[in-house]
């Protein structure tokens, strides 16, 4: 299978899974900002997703994408280290056009994965997982996403950890976005610059959405979510 046994095929897997994860982050970020405006609308989204079958199937799909992305990251890195050989250069000099992120995607990826463990522990375990196993006696009900955000960011340590995490994802995406398009062959003299620009804007906007929510809930939790909203008028 060319996707596994050719260098370009393996990179195609990284690109497609990476691009899908960027799309997921975009949806996730959009849903998060709802919490800034309306508690009821945000909790509506939490309830809609909750532990419904389609949300569980989508979560499993997401986990599979993530697992593929991580496994291939390690395979590629292992092969690349081998291709580089054992002799290291005594003197190295990084050319100006080479971005730090592009040479440290695995390091950034590991920081992202560690942050993800924290995030799953803080939210997913208390929401979807708690609902699946029917956990009781928690700080907030599983579908009270607004309450969980408030509770998590009431501890200032978390905002620092989350901001570091968000910065690492931002750096990972600024390279990953155009690199994915380049690997899929959708690039050239003109589109290289366009994708790079689109990638920077896209990842900055998406990660800013996450950062704003974390910062706002740390400094001003009581002034948020006051608008009475209904984001899903046809369902509820």
């Amino acid at each position, binding site marked *: 299978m060319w996707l596994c046994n050719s260098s370009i095929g393996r990179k195609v897997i990284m690109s497609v899974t990476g691009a899908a994860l960027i799309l997921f982050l975009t949806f996730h970020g959009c849903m998060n900002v709802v919490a800034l405006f309306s508690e009821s609308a945000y909790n509506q989204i939490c309830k809609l997703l909750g532990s419904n079958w389609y949300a569980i199937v989508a979560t499993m799909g997401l986990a599979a994408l993530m697992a593929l992305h991580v496994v291939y990251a390690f395979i590629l890195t292992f092969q690349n280290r081998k291709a580089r050989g054992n002799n290291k250069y*005594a003197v190295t000099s990084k050319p100006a056009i080479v971005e730090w992120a592009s040479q440290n995607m695995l390091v950034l990826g590991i920081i992202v994965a560690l942050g993800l463990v924290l995030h799953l522990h803080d939210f997913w375990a208390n929401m979807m997982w708690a609902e699946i196993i029917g956990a009781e006696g928690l700080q907030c009900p599983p579908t009270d996403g607004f309450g969980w955000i408030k509770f998590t960011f009431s501890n200032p340590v978390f905002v620092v950890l989350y901001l570091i995490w968000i910065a690492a994802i931002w750096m990972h995406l600024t390279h990953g976005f155009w690199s994915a398009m380049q690997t899929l062959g959708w690039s*050239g003299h003109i589109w290289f610059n366009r994708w790079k620009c689109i990638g920077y804007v896209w990842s900055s906007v998406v990660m800013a959405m996450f950062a704003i929510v974390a910062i706002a809930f740390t400094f001003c939790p009581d002034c948020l979510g006051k608008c009475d909203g209904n984001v899903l008028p046809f369902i509820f």
Partner: protein
Amino acid sequence: MANISFTVKFWKQNGPKDAGHFDSHELKNIPDDTSFLEALDILNEELIAEGKEPFVFDHDCREGICGMCSLYINGTPHGKTERGATTCQLYVRKFKDGDVVTVEPWRSAGFPVIKDCMVDRTAFDKIIQAGGYTTVRTGAPQDANAILIPKPDADEAMDCASCIGCGACVAACKNGSAMLFVSSKVSQLALLPQGRVEAAKRAKAMVAKMDELGFGNCTNTRACEAVCPKCETIANIARLNREFIKAKLAD
């Protein structure tokens, strides 16, 4: 014009299995319009006069077109020349009096060291043999204008064809990837109607050979295009990816 003195710290290695080490030698009063390779010739004359073994390095045309010179100088393949120049076009005036100039071989599993800074680059020849050609019957040449080619395509193909296969891209890449070389060689033919006929077969065969020879996976760091003496760009790599993916999807 001025004369400068500098120390050359050069890599010595007896074959691919040897661990290798650095030796150093001070070159005194070298005119700054001396080419760097001429300075290394002076180094060797002095080493021989001292009864030492000369330093081995590759070189041939010394005018930047053959791709034979291959030294990693102060952390950069071909040294910090102007863009679009090879080691043989690097001059002593690029260094300062008292500098220590570190000279290393291309370090990559795909290019085993033969001796000192001379590395075995036959892997590139093998990749070319795998598909870097068009299968045509030789004989009376056809009229030059029998197949019309748009000027931008012809120019782009010519730019890709200017790759001299020196291996600086592999030397600069942290993944030891040969993608810039392979993509330039695939592009120079893929852009022309004569090369389109075998484009899919060529992309598959050359990538398969590149992978088989142990070159790494491209992660788009752009170190290759930053050091390429012929200014090849990663637009070629995108083109190769496109050709390869299209060929595999068509199978």
